[in-house]
């Protein structure tokens, strides 16, 4: 074995070891975060967390109002964001596949997709909170909708582009108008992928805190009035975690555990849905 050959071999072994340890670092970090989350979150988790209101410092309580608030904000965001996203994605994949407009929208949408969410919060503050004069659940829902739209646009466009043209031609040949072809043939063929997109969007917004800080703000009390400040899980976690009170901090951990579980279940569901959709 020449020295040159030996050194190349050594280098290869070192690189392999580095790659392996990099992977272990990545996996270890995931295990570390999930582990400490489970450890800290489970100790505070009880039925009361789901049935009682947020407490004042030093008292017993739960996270019922932020959980309900988060659900309402998420539903509102989906109700606004999904139709807009699906329609825009439909235009890009069906009517204007080779348009100038489509390529511009695709570029802009990609920018929106990774734009800092706190900037979206500032934007909604400027256009909704400041003119209305008060923080409100509506503003929070719209802010989240702005985050939903790019995710849905992207997946809708991708999934509709995958639908084979033969399906469209067959539909057209039996005299189906274009809009019906899209709604009854293409949407059905792309269904699994489009639902995946919506699930991914839910996973993305359910942990979002920054855009809610100054749109829906927070509410210490039971309120389902969308025209007033409304509590949401992430904002409550933010507030409670930074507080000096031990019971608030432990509630924050429980809330963090709830959110993470919800997000992980959503993204795993979305992923398995996407892979079954590909097989069929």
């Amino acid at each position: 074995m020449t020295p040159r050959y030996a050194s190349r071999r050594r280098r290869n072994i070192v690189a392999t070891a580095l790659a392996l340890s990099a992977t272990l670092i990545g996996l270890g970090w995931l295990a570390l975060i999930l582990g400490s989350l489970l450890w800290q979150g489970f100790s505070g988790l009880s039925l009361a967390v789901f049935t009682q209101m947020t407490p004042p410092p030093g008292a017993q309580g739960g996270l019922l109002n932020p959980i309900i608030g988060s659900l309402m904000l998420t539903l509102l965001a989906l109700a606004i964001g999904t139709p807009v996203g699906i329609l825009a994605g439909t235009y890009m994949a069906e009517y204007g596949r080779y348009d100038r407009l489509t390529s511009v929208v695709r570029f802009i949408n990609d920018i929106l997709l990774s734009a800092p969410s706190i900037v979206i919060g500032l934007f909604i503050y400027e256009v909704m909170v400041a003119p209305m004069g008060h923080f409100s659940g509506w503003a929070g829902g719209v802010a989240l909708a702005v985050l939903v739209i790019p995710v849905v646009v992207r997946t809708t466009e991708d999934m509709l582009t995958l639908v084979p043209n033969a399906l469209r031609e067959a539909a057209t040949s039996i005299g189906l108008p274009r809009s019906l072809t899209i709604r009854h043939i293409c949407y059905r063929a792309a269904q699994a992928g489009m639902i995946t997109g919506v699930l991914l969007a839910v996973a993305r917004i359910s942990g979002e805190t920054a855009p809610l800080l100054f749109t829906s703000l927070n509410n210490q009390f039971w309120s389902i009035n969308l025209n007033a400040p409304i509590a949401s899980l992430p904002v409550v976690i933010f507030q409670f975690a930074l507080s000096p009170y031990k019971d608030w901090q432990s509630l924050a951990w429980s809330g963090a555990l709830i959110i993470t579980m919800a997000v992980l279940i959503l993204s795993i569901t979305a992923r398995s849905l996407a892979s079954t959709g590909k097989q069929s």
Partner: protein
Amino acid sequence: MDPTRGQSVADVTLPAGALISVKAATRARVLDRLRLGDIVFCQLTRAAAFGVLLLLSGVIVALVVGSLPALRTFGLSFLTTERWNPVTEKFGALAPIYGTLVTSFIAMLIAVPIGLMIAFFLTELCPQWLRRPIGIAIELLAGIPSIIYGIWGLFIFAPFLQGTLQPFLIATLGHVPGIAPLFSGPPYGIGMLTAGLILAIMVLPFATSISRDVFSAVPAVLKEAAYGVGCTTWEVARYVVLPYARVGVIGGVMLGLGRALGETMAVTFVIGNAHRVSASLLAPGTTISASIANEFTEAVGDLYTSSLIALGLILFVITFIVLAIARYMLMRIERRIG
């Protein structure tokens, strides 16, 4: 309207004329309705696509309008002043801009090599059956909401660093001439280094998944040719795969950078929110997004609010440029692969 429109041969050959005209009229109505539905649906989708454009321009316009008072008062010196005093209403963005850039730089410095090595492992070394689970696990890191990183960083990671890594850095690198100021001062636990490390974990999945995708898109013949002339696995990765995938990797890195720059909650927890530019990486600092998140709801007075919005505008401009470059690079590699 012509009642015979849409009439076909079959209709004409039917007996009983009255029936024909009724049928034809219904048919025409139905066809008209379908045609109308077609036009409405098409225009609706087009309007939604324009809506996406309007959204981005709306964001830009709102930020510019909101930050005008601050920009008019401070002018360009807003970018170069360190002072941030809500009481005397004197604001400058230097400390947040500095903090944003430094934390993102630390994050990229750590995440990019690790991400590339993981991608190298996943595409070249890992047994086939392990690839999917490891890939999914790494992507789960991207799925964890940023507030979770924040609370984890504050309660677990920062105290850990305060007790171990930071005293070690101060004791060793803190005495090396040249870089000593970077590691001076007491170990606070929270600070720029901690924020950078947390960001590194958050950026890692982006760097990994995009590098993995472009690595696996490298044509097998190239790799086989290199193996054929006797290259080691590492040499193939370093001198064949990496150069081929360079543009895509840079695109992925920029995408991760865009995320690191704008990341809010994770950083807000561990940065310490101190509006000053300090040489030491261990000192508390602030970033643009953390300043906005911490101070916006408490900001009193138009000038204070407007200064924070101006910070948001700066952040948006920086990320816009970074993301645009990233998209351009990724588009180039997609064109080459596809």
